[in-house]
């Protein structure tokens, strides 16, 4: 199962670490010197750790970003921004807690922050609709993007979303048009935009918030037109081939950097962001500051043109990603 604290591929490591702890305990209790044996085992554990985490398959990375302890958007915001003032509502129909937005201070400078928000537990997940936004979420995002433009604030999005919510009312209120409008608005905003795929980058629901002048990605995140499970179902009528689909779809940060879909990979602490939140926060903050600095010198017109050019290349004959 994906939703347990210990992932399948981590089990050998966890077992070994457990044995080391037991041995230490045993040595302590009996007052024995087992330091040689313990050292050997610890070396082996260290080696195993590297073997596992340096060679993660796309599928294993997906499990990492779906890890229940993976920091959520609000946790990342708390780690990265000096302060954050959340703003609510789409001014049309409702407040969508599955997509949070507001103004944060990045090193003292106000920026508009937008992010789908998963719950940290079942209760919060239900409250936040598992981080699956309705049209109201996207329309709140549009509102706050335009507000950012008015006040010349950069927009930073943190994207961890399986997709836009597939529901009757979401369809009735225009899920498709809401996403299209968000793409269009973020895609032509006159202020710098930086998108970070922090976990799951699922389809149009993620793209809507990923129209960055710079698109960054956490090391283990994925970004895909379709979930590997759904791809497997379409291709093989069942989801047994999700792992193969994950590889074929080229959705890992390294694949996407190679295709120039993203501009930069932000490294994660060994074993994933949840293993060291503070470190993750520092790495993310550093990347945001550095990329924002690149964009700060550009005029509004240059920002818009640069963003158009950035996305224009995908699919063009001569696209570096295609050759």
């Amino acid at each position: 199962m994906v939703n347990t604290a210990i992932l399948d591929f981590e089990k050998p490591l966890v077992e070994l670490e457990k044995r080391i702890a037991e041995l230490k305990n045993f040595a302590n209790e009996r007052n024995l010197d087992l330091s040689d044996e313990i050292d050997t085992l610890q070396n082996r554990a260290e080696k195993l750790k590297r073997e596992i985490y340096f060679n993660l398959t796309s599928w294993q990375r997906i499990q990492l970003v779906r890890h229940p302890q993976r920091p959520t958007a609000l946790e990342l915001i708390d780690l990265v921004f000096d302060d954050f003032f959340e703003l609510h509502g789409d001014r049309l129909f409702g407040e969508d807690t599955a997509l949070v937005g507001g103004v944060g201070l990045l090193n003292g400078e106000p920026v508009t922050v937008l992010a789908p928000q998963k719950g940290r537990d079942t209760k919060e997940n239900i409250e936040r609709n598992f981080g699956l936004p309705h049209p109201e979420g996207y329309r709140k995002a549009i509102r706050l993007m335009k507000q950012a433009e008015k006040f010349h604030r950069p927009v930073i999005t943190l994207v961890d979303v399986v997709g836009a919510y597939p529901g009757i009312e979401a369809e009735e209120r225009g899920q498709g048009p809401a996403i299209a409008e968000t793409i269009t608005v973020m895609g032509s905003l006159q202020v710098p935009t930086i998108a970070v795929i922090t976990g799951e980058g699922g389809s149009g629901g993620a793209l809507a918030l990923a129209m960055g002048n710079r698109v960054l990605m956490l090391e283990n995140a994925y970004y895909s037109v379709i979930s590997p499970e759904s791809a497997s179902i379409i291709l093989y009528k069942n989801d047994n081939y999700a792992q193969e689909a994950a590889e074929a779809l080229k959705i890992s940060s390294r694949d996407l950097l190679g295709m120039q879909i993203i501009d930069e990979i932000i490294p994660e602490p060994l074993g994933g962001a949840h293993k060291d939140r503070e470190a993750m926060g520092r790495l993310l903050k550093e990347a945001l500051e550095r990329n924002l600095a690149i964009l700060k010198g550009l005029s509004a017109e240059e920002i818009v043109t640069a963003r158009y050019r950035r996305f224009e290349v995908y699919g063009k004959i001569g696209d570096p990603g295609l050759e």
Partner: protein
Amino acid sequence: MFKDLFRSKPKYVTVRPHKQSDRSEKKEIPGGLWIKCNKCNNILYRKDLEKSLSVCPKCGYHFVISAKERILELVDPDSFKEMDADLETADPLGFPDYLDKLSKYQEETGMKEAIITGKATILGQRLVLALIDFNFMRGSMNTVVGEKLVRAFAVATKEKMPVVVISGGGGGARMQEGVLSLMQMARTCQAVEKHNNAGLLYIAVLTQATMGGVYASFASQADIILAEPGALIGFAGPRIIEQTMKQSLPEGFQTAEYVYQHGHIDRIVARPFLKVTLAHLLAWHGR
């Protein structure tokens, strides 16, 4: 003035909306002499159906038609000048079985990809026209569909021409080109926005079916959105919604009529009225 053209036309173009919905997403007219209607089950004489623009004369059901048939119906004779006809996908991910699948569709449809673009006139009105063909991999959007749309909008922007897109992308973004298909949503929205910023007219005609990444990008970003009766229009597929919500869908859910009631479509236009409606709107926005 152009209004003379419409003098004999009814003042309010009226449209008869369908009461019953129909979920079957594709049913080409087969080669035989007779054909059964998907909706009313009447047996129709093939020649009759062709004469009525592939609209069932008994019940008004709109059969899916190909991009080529649509061009014949819609534009002035010999006015269509195709653009970028030769573009083919580079299979950027090297996706399993993709090239074979493409060959099969190319043979079946005689098209290189799921879209045809070009310049044309409709009752004398100049426009750039893009038609997505549902029969080619369910009209799904890949790098070529995106590129041809972007080029069509760019040409229109440069030459100050209106754009009409006849959408029909039941597959949304095409899986086999992965995130590059997704990026076409970004590119087409930006191309539409540049055309929009130039003050030019864009009309989308949503036909069976306009779903997923097609609906969630260029297809819903038009100044005026028309739809054919009964067309399926939405973001998430009905089956996915049923599975997620664990409840059955309302009568007529995601049909053009339903989506119209919810405010997302300007007008439902039956196929026989489409040509004159477009000419009408193009003339009024031409200056």
